């Protein structure tokens, strides 16, 4: 089993996400993370799905995704074939702010993006291992809330979507 990133380019069609996720459900494959956004092309959306799968199964999953009528193209990549990032937000009580915390923030290239009366929100962008590590440390600073996005990824291979549009 290894980690794969699936990039799916779709028409903006109601229910498309459901159609894609039931393919994973049917085979009992857990989606580790998912993000949706627009792509470079107007009106075409891209989904980035991170799954743990096998070399054989990933091909079948991607073929099945691509069979969906409103899916234009689906690709899959191993981790070394994509440049990817995730964003994590950490909410801490104001009382935790001290030089020790500030040092940690600098050390992890994180930053405070919001400071309210009672709490601050720290943001860090990176890979899961790094944001997870910071989470471990911030637990000592009475972290109140944590949220992490799925990955956004662009591929290293120089293929473009254009060739699949007409």
């Amino acid at each position: 089993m290894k980690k794969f990133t699936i990039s799916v380019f779709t028409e903006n069609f109601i229910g498309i996400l459901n159609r894609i996720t039931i393919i994973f459900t049917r085979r009992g494959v857990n989606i580790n993370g998912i993000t949706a956004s627009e792509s470079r092309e107007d009106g075409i959306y891209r989904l980035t799905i991170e799954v743990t799968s096998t070399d054989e199964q990933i091909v079948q999953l991607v073929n099945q995704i691509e069979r969906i009528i409103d899916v234009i193209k689906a690709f899959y990549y191993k981790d070394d074939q994509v440049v990817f990032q995730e964003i994590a937000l950490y909410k801490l009580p104001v009382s935790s702010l001290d030089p020790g915390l500030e040092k940690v923030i600098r050390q992890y290239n994180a930053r405070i993006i919001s400071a309210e009366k009672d709490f601050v929100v720290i943001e860090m962008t990176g890979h899961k291992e790094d944001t997870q590590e910071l989470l471990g440390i911030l637990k000592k600073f009475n972290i109140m809330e944590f949220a992490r996005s799925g990955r956004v990824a662009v591929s290293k291979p120089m293929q473009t979507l254009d060739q699949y549009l007409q």
Partner: protein
Amino acid sequence: MNDTRIRGAEIVIKSLVAEKVTTLFGYPGGAIMPVYDALYDYIDQVDHVLTRHEQGAIHAAQGFARVSGKVGVCMVTSGPGATNLITGLADALIDSTPLVCITGQVASHLLGTDAFQETDVVGFSMPGTKWNIQVRRVEDIAPAISKGFHIARSGRPGPVLIDITKDAQFALGEFTYAPTFSVRSYKPYPPVNSKMVEKAAELINGAKKPFVLFGQGVLMAKAEEELRAFLEKTGIPAACTLLGSGAFSEDHPLYVGKLGMHGNYAPNILTNQCDVLIAIGMRFDDRVTGDLSRYATQAKVVHLELDPVEINKNVKADAPVLGNCKESLSLLIDQVHPSSHHEWLNEFRQLEQEEKASVVARDLSPTKTGLTMGEVIRYVNEFKDDDAVLVTDVGQHQMIAWRYFDFKNSRTQVTSGGLGTMGFGLPAALGAQLHNPSRQVICVVGDGGIQMTVQELGTIMQTKAPVKIILLNNNYLGMVRQWQQMFFDKRYSFTELENPDFIKIAEAYKIKSSKVEQREDLSEAVADMFLHEGPYFLEVVVAKEDNVFPMVATGCSVDEIRLS
């Protein structure tokens, strides 16, 4: 200025007319009433068949589609009307049957509110459709229907569901209909890769013991002639899958039988002895392959297949030829060398003799008391037309009828293959018959399956569709009982039925009927059935505990096929 706008409901009907739909199977209800009202003005253009249950409507549409090669159409109301389609959708999806199903939906302001007969049909049907859509605006109705027909019939065919809200049906809009020829995100016919065709030809030309397996893909591509030409040029023996029957005449000297769990002895055994396996328009279903890890491991595999998902899904192909098999076969025919394989073909014939001497003799010319299902089919063959259609339900009778029915022409079989839907047979036969009332349609059913959709006798009565129904009654859910006997120590857990008087049921529906219990009456009864012009119901009481052989038991390899 004249207002040329019409109601969405009428746009639905005009769109169907534009798609040259002549027959529509359906059942009215609240949320589809505007369309039924519009239909009232078009009954001279569209023949609507009122079934007795929505499941009957969709199976009838499937039967219609399978014999005609056209898109089957059905129309039902929201809520339970729509959910009653689900089995048929799943069946049509797995057996690649083109359907367009139109469902009424509550008015759009009520969506998501648990309104009366509101259900999330688009959500329910998503895993069971090739494509589905909810239409909430009148201007989207015709484009959705146009796109739906294109998607249903092109590429690997499948069912499409179009859910139309009641307010869109009532709203006024202009009608213009533009047939859909392409959809940006959908490439139904991947181009045939000539390199792969060359590789396939190379493998075939070098083969000593090549073997062709053909499936329904040949029928769907209308590639029957190409298949025959390919086989005759190369002299390769060929066997069919359940749904491929009819794509190549069983009278042909290169035809060597049927594949799979209850297929023939020779093709199952020799699958594991061939050196090149050429699969054409089939998907290596587990009922065909048995234990995959011991399936044709000695052979190089050539796979001609339209759907990329099927390539390497179950069996790895050495030469995967993606694309329409009509096209790839044509290319292949030019590149293969004329050849013959007499010795190899003889191996099939020898094993065939073994099967004939044991199983076939016992099934077709039994000496013991108790009628066999096989001998009923033998008499059917004797009296039927060459292009008669066999429609079966699911179970022992399905396997026996498939094994022994004489398939001479293309599109002569309708059965539920992938899903194994009991209750499919009777309504599917109705649909097949209504496509062409002058073609013989023989519906073979068991006593279990017929009771799942027996209400469609009412539709047969009303339409006078001259279906010849043969009920093979063994008072058991026979296939399950056979498994209980073989694999569950004869613990017949809930498989014996207390049955009604079927003849009285047929009589109640004013369908001419007869019942046979003795061997000496069988021939005449079958002959009489075919002589009758209208629908006919023939009940044959068969041996209670007969089994279907040969059999590749679950988990076994195809060459472990048993004759008893």
